[in-house]
Every structure is written in structure tokens, then in C-alpha cells.
């Protein structure tokens, strides 16, 4: 069943995120929605605010060996390790399909092993008209080089953000890792290096052990935890970061329904992203979009943005003012 939300959304869910106009603030988390076409049997992806691509790298990556998925209480661990076909294949084979079927903004997710790779890939994605926002992934827990190692080290995070910033005029969002002692510090660095927005949180490093084999379930031993289990941590971190930066936050981490999404706006997210929730419920995005519209109506809000950061001690007023200043 598809819900016709287009008309209704225009007034209450329409938003501008990092200068890009979106019909609603609901996106898809990188790596959970591939390149936007896989869920077309269940709903029209053009009903979303934006789609974030699977993590892209310059060269093709095979990802990690062995078991890559393990279910844990209210969550899943994955150790996919950024398997992707590489930018050449993406441009030649996937982009034409996206152009054919998708007419909403696309966010390109950028990964690299070295700063030079991040920069090179950014240059390539910068030239693609379809891609309206870039998401710099310095937080993947499943790759040995780059990935989380970049996001957890303030100096490298500073350098990679700064270098990437130099080679693109597209809005740049930095995806933060929760696997750090002080996430606020890294967020501030991203902002100071010219990021236009922050996306958070990436998965939490975790592990699962098979008691029969007495060994780690995942081939890569450790993996990234996502799903409802991580939601309280994501909310806490967004609440902290949104009070210290004045660039918008794309919030994600365990959102499974409308109520979860509302919590993220209240914590300080300007838009939200759904990931793991698609697996049990392929219709989740439409349900959340419709639910947010209903919430705005019931709460007599003109726009969902009115509740951003409301859970802050000043009811989010300061944060919203800061966000407006940046526009």
C-alpha cells in the first residue's frame, strides 16, 4: 500500500537541509538502502527526502570475509567492510539507473584508505550533477585503514575534512563515529574545517560469540552495531553535539518508527535517516513520513523544524537561531 503524501507534506515536512531543498526530512542511511532501487517493489523511493548511497570508494572493494551479519538483542552487527563496485562502475552502470528512476536529491557517501583517496573520490563525485550533498564517512568500524581510524583521531579528522572541503563546493556533511571518548570534539573540528552538516551516529563497535563453536560469529570478529539497541546512545550524542555546533545534524541510529524519529528532532537533528529498520519493515520510511505529518497536524506545528532541539534546556531556541544564522 502506498500512501500519497506529496500534497500533504509540502506544507509541514518540507525543509531545507544544508541549503538543499527536501520534500521531507527523511533519508536512508548509507549501506542500508544500496543505491535507491532495491526497495522499489515496496514503495516509490521518490517519496523520500533524499537517498544516501552505499559507501563508495575509488577502487572496487570486496569487503570482509566470512559471516558478515549477526543478530543481537534489538540490533544487528555487520562487518560488510564497504563492499562496493568502485566509482567507475558506479558512474557507468549504477548512476544511469538512478537517473532513470530517482528524482530526489542523492547524497554521495565517500570513503578512502588515505586522505588522497578521499580527495580524489570527492573530485569525482563533485562533477556528478545528480549528487547534491556529499557525506564524508570517517567512521566505518569495519575497515582497517581509513574509516573509524580517521574519525577517532582528531588531527586526522581535521586534515581529511579540510582537504576534502578544498575540492568541492557541494554541501559537505561529515559522518561521525560514536566509538570515541569525546564526540563533541570531533564535531567541532568538522564544523571548523568547513563542514556544512554532521551526520551521526555511525555504528558502534561490537561483538557476538557463538557458544557452540566458542568463536566470534563475524568473520571480521568485530562489527558495527545498529538497530533499536543503539538509539539511546545516538540520542544522547546528538543532544550533546547539537548544543555545541551551529551546523545542522542528520540524526540516525535505531530509528524504527515515527516516535523514534520525533525523539531525534527533539534531541537536535534537523533531518533523520532510516537504516536497519528497512530490514524488518520495508515500508518504514513511508510510515514515518506519514506519521510525522500526522504529528505536526496534531501538535499544530506549521513545520516539523519547529521542534528541532526542543529537548535542550532552552527548548532548542538557541540552536534554531544558530541554524538560521548559518543559512
Amino acid at each position, binding site marked *: 500500500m502506498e500512501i500519497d503524501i506529496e500534497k500533504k507534506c509540502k506544507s509541514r515536512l518540507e525543509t531545507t537541509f544544508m541549503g538543499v531543498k527536501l520534500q521531507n526530512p527523511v533519508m536512508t542511511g548509507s549501506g542500508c538502502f*544500496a543505491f535507491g532501487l532495491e526497495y522499489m*517493489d515496496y514503495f516509490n523511493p521518490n517519496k523520500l527526502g533524499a537517498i544516501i548511497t552505499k559507501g563508495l570508494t575509488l577502487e572496487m572493494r*570486496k569487503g570482509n570475509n566470512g559471516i*558478515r551479519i549477526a543478530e543481537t538483542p534489538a540490533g544487528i552487527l555487520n562487518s560488510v567492510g564497504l*563492499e562496493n563496485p568502485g566509482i567507475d*562502475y558506479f558512474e557507468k552502470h549504477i548512476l544511469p*539507473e538512478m537517473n532513470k528512476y530517482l528524482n530526489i536529491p542523492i547524497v554521495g557517501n565517500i570513503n578512502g584508505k588515505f586522505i588522497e583517496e578521499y580527495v580524489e573520490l570527492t573530485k569525482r563525485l563533485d562533477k556528478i550533477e545528480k549528487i547534491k550533498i556529499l557525506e564524508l564517512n570517517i567512521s566505518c568500524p569495519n575497515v582497517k585503514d581509513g574509516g573509524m581510524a580517521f574519525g577517532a583521531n582528531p588531527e586526522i579528522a581535521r586534515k581529511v575534512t579540510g582537504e576534502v572541503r578544498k575540492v568541492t563546493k557541494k554541501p559537505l556533511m561529515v559522518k561521525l563515529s560514536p566509538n570515541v571518548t569525546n564526540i563533541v570534539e570531533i564535531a567541532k573540528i568538522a564544523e571548523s574545517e568547513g563542514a556544512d552538516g554532521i551526520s551521526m551516529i555511525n555504528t558502534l563497535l561490537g561483538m557476538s560469540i557463538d557458544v557452540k563453536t566458542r568463536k566470534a560469529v563475524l568473520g571480521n570478529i568485530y562489527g558495527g552495531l545498529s*538497530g533499536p539497541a543503539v538509539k539511546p546512545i545516538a540520542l544522547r550524542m546528538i543532544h550533546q553535539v547539537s548544543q555545541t555546533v551551529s551546523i545542522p545534524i542528520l540524526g540516525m541510529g535505531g530509528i524504527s518508527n515515527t516516535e523514534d524519529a520525533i525523539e531525534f528532532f527533539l534531541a537536535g537533528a534537523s533531518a533523520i535517516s532510516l537504516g536497519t529498520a528497512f*530490514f524488518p519493515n*520495508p515500508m518504514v520510511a513511508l510510515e514515518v513520513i506519514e506519521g510525522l505529518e500526522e504529528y505536526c497536524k496534531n501538535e499544530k506545528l506549521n513545520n516539523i523544524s519547529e521542534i528541532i532541539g526542543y529537548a535542550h534546556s532552552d527548548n532548542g531556541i538557541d540552536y534554531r537561531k544558530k541554524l538560521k544564522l548559518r543559512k
Partner: protein
Amino acid sequence: MYKSGINNGNYKCSGKKTGFLEDVTVSENKYLGADNYLMKVFSENVKKQVTNPKAGQFYMLKLRNHIRILRRPISLHSVNFKTGELEFLYKVIGKGTEELSILQKGSILNIQGPLGKGFDIYKKSENIIVIGGGIGLAPLKQLIKELLKYKENKNIIFIAGGRNKEAMNILENFLLDSKRVSTFICTDDGSLGEKLNIAEMLEKILKNNKNPDIIYSCGPDKALKAVNDIVNRKNILSQISMEERMACGVGACVGCSVETVSGMRKVCHDGPVFYSSIFYENRGEINGN
């Protein structure tokens, strides 16, 4: 034998709807011994012929316990288009399948599918071998039914293997009365049929028969590898149905990828049925999948 390659998985979108989400009613959920269960459900979509599931495809079954968030991928055992009945044969291996096993007649279950690519049926294959080991027998009932639709498929040799006699109770639900199907049973402990594994049984049969036109197989990894080595050595066209842990079931999360000679392939989307040649460098692509 495995070689890295470029990813040329299929990213093309046909724009045609193939998978559905549907609430179905459980009409039977019977214990067959050795942790195996047979579940029958009634599907409106099948009855109205909105979906046309095929042998080798699978469904993602939703659990009700929200602590376990992933759907469980279960192969299609059989479909009856007249009654709208779908059959799933599954083994209880963890908490998720245990939850499925306690569903009773009348329970409502949300299913997603049919998903993935099934077996290719060749209408004029005179000699065919179908091999199943353990719960890998599950997709083969529908496969044999589809093969029997074509009169030209004259001789079907069905090799069914399992741990012991009890594990072979699942064969009760196979329709093997056709004169065109010769069944060979083997068990690890010899309590039913011959004391052989499915690969050994295949070797034995191939010694006494000419090579078949095609071999279809599904079973535990180790057995599939042994079967694959035989078909590779003898250069027989072969399809295997693989099993892998999945999260999305639609090709989005890349959790179930396997390495092949022509790149990484997603078991849920590019499979679960693959041509065996895809794992062997020296065979080239025979009807490359």
C-alpha cells in the same frame, strides 16, 4: 580456486514489481522430527496469481518478538496455485526459527517475497540429477514438480541425504510417485538407505550412468563443495542453491555476498541459485548466471 574480480553484480532495476509484503494465515505447522518443521500458509497473492513464486526462490518471514529484528529467509518448499497454499520446510536452528515453530493454525504471519533467483528449468533435459542434503532438501520439492511439468524431462535421479532416518522424515512430503523419478537415499549413520554422503552417492551414480544434462543441488556448504568439485571435474552443467546469513533479502545491505570468479555476488539477489561454474576459474561461464 577462488579469484578476485570486478563486481558486476546486477544493479539493473526492471521497474517490475516482483516481491510483495503480505499477511498470510498459517494452516498447518507440523513437526517432522530431527528439528524439522513443515509449515503451510494461505496466500491471497498466490491464489489471485498476483505472485508467481518459483523453485529456488525464498521468502523473508517476520518474527513477532521485536528483540529479534531480522526476518528469517526460508526457501519455498512448494506452491499450489489453485489453493493459494505455500509450503515452507525449515529446521529450528536458533531462537528465530524456534519462534516460527510455535505458530499455530490460524496464526497470521507477515511474509516478504518471493525473493531471489530460482532454478533455471530446461524443458528438454533428458537426464537430470537433483541432490539435496539435510534441510537443503527444502527447495527441491518444487523443483521436481517444475521439472516434471515437461514430458521431455524423462529421467530424474533424486539423491536425498541426511544425518539419520529421522531426518529423512521430510521426504514424506515429497511427491515421488512419478515413474520418471528414481530416488536414492543415503544417511550418515546408514539408518536409512546407504551409509554415504550425498557427494559419495553422486560419484557412485555417475559411475553407473552417463553424465546428466544438468545437476541441481542444495545442502550444507561442505557437501555442496564436494558436489561442485565433482561437477567441475566432469564438466557437467550444474546449479546450486546457497544459504547465507541475510539482513535485507533484497540486495541492499550486501551482508550475504560471496566471492565468485566474476566478482562479488549477493546470495539474496543474484542467487540463491547460482551456476557452479561461477566458482571455477577454468570452466568459463556455462550459461553464466
